[in-house]
């Protein structure tokens, strides 16, 4: 990789990731300020504007620093792994600036407990059919990849390809073992089903309305939730297909039936990357966090319960409410949903998923 290519990569990477971070205040629901519920009036006040301006200044400086770090490191160490340097530099800066803004917003936090509001009649919430389909496809793809790899296990040579170059030809081989052969199909099953499961949970995530409640707030919530659900289903589908094609292709190369990975791998990878990024940007611009951009057009009510109750949020990022049966709740600052850490089911589900990935990674390291 040339230094110029590194510079371009650093700018694109830092600008796209940093740009999303930078614009978070633009998509946040009205009344929230950097993870703190300050009330609708204070959110438009002079102090809130000062905190937000300070955030913009800090983030722009940090994004610029990330680009420079990426370019300098790229020129000094010409290795593809250095391409992630701008992102690694950007993320801690984001959290430092966020925590500073959070601390400032705490000073103007809205006191007391907000009312809880629920819509008691059945709204015409479209019950998304996509999550069960995404889960079924992920399960089918994962099981197919496992069955195919397992059936070919005895036919594979003593050394199997474990890494492939940009041309799709293998450039690293390892002795055949259970994990060198089965790692990829197991990953296809766990990741595909995991993302499909998150999509299903998102379809049932907690809603936070404005009071007095009107359909504007409810519709905004439902549309946003549906959009995120569909995006996750799409990601689950493409990830499952990508990892399944990859697994089957690796086995076929190992068996000597193909010389390089299937061309479908090179098609699915950019489709996954660009589609996911495009989907995130589309949801942010069209809906805003929690449908904030749809709400702002018409609703003047106050945020209620979950999102507005500062007592249930740790650092404005972690929702902990033992009474609340919800598993997923909206992020206060950012895009999408986060876990209710007060719900043991939420903790068990994510813990199980992370544990499965960890076991897989550790077993692969030990046996490979």
């Amino acid at each position: 990789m040339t230094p110029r290519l590194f510079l371009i990569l650093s700018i694109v990477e830092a600008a796209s990731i940093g740009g999303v971070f930078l614009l978070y205040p633009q998509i946040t629901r009205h009344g929230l300020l950097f993870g703190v519920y300050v009330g609708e009036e204070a959110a438009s006040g002079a102090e809130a504007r000062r905190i937000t301006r300070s955030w913009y200044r800090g983030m722009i400086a940090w994004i610029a620093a990330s680009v420079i770090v990426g370019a300098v490191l790229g020129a000094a160490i010409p290795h593809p792994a250095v391409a992630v340097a701008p992102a690694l530099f950007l993320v801690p800066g984001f959290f430092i600036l966020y925590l500073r803004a959070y601390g400032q917003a705490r000073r103007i936090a809205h006191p007391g407990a907000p009312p809880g509001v629920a819509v008691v009649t059945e709204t015409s919430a479209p019950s998304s059919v996509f999550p069960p389909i995404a889960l079924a496809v992920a399960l089918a793809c994962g099981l197919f990849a496992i069955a195919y790899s397992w059936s070919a296990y005895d036919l594979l040579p003593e050394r199997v390809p474990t890494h492939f170059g940009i041309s799709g030809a293998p450039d690293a081989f390892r002795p055949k073992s259970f994990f060198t052969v089965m790692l990829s199909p197991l990953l296809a099953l766990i990741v595909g089903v995991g993302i499909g499961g998150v999509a299903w949970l998102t379809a049932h995530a907690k809603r936070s309305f404005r009071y007095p409640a009107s359909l504007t707030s409810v519709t905004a919530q439902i549309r946003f939730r549906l959009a995120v659900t569909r995006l996750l289903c799409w990601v689950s589908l493409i990830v499952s297909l990508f990892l399944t094609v990859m697994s089957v292709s690796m086995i076929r190369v190992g068996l000597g039936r193909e010389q390089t990975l299937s061309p479908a791998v090179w098609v699915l990878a950019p489709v996954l990357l660009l589609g996911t990024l495009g989907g995130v940007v589309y949801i942010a611009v069209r809906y805003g966090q929690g449908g904030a951009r749809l709400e702002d057009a018409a609703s003047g009510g106050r945020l209620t319960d979950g999102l507005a109750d500062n007592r249930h949020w740790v650092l404005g990022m972690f929702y902990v409410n033992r009474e609340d049966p919800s598993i997923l709740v909206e992020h206060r600052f950012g895009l999408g949903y986060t876990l209710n850490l007060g719900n043991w089911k939420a903790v068990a589900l994510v813990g199980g998923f992370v544990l499965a990935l960890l076991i897989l990674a550790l077993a692969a390291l030990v046996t490979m």
Partner: protein
Amino acid sequence: MGTLLYTYQYTEAEMRPIPSVVVDRSSPEPVYVQIARSIRARICSGEIASGTPLAPVRTVASDLGVNLNTVARAYRLLEDEGFVQIRSRSGVEVAPPAGKSDREAVERLQEDLAAVLARMRQAGVAPAELRRRAEKEIGAIERLE
């Protein structure tokens, strides 16, 4: 910047108020009583018509951030009072007024009515004002028939 990027135009139907329950956690009144009272008031005012399906227990509990049992208890209370019917498969729906009155239940409610009127009188409401208020409520019920 918000309006520059995208502005959603709502239809009139989307702007109308929607029946909702409001819970005040700082109130000494138990949450399930507040939920039941809120739904009862909306049924009595005609805001929620008979036959309307109510949101499932899980949805209401998630919206409010309260325990599932709290909402289930509120629904059971409303069922005991005859305001809703709980069906295991089709969920909960608002019940129509009973076609034939249950003599024992009516006698019990008559006592409750007497107690409420007495409490209002004790609270300083004059008998003429009591009559006016009672007639207003009866008028509201007649309009729903």
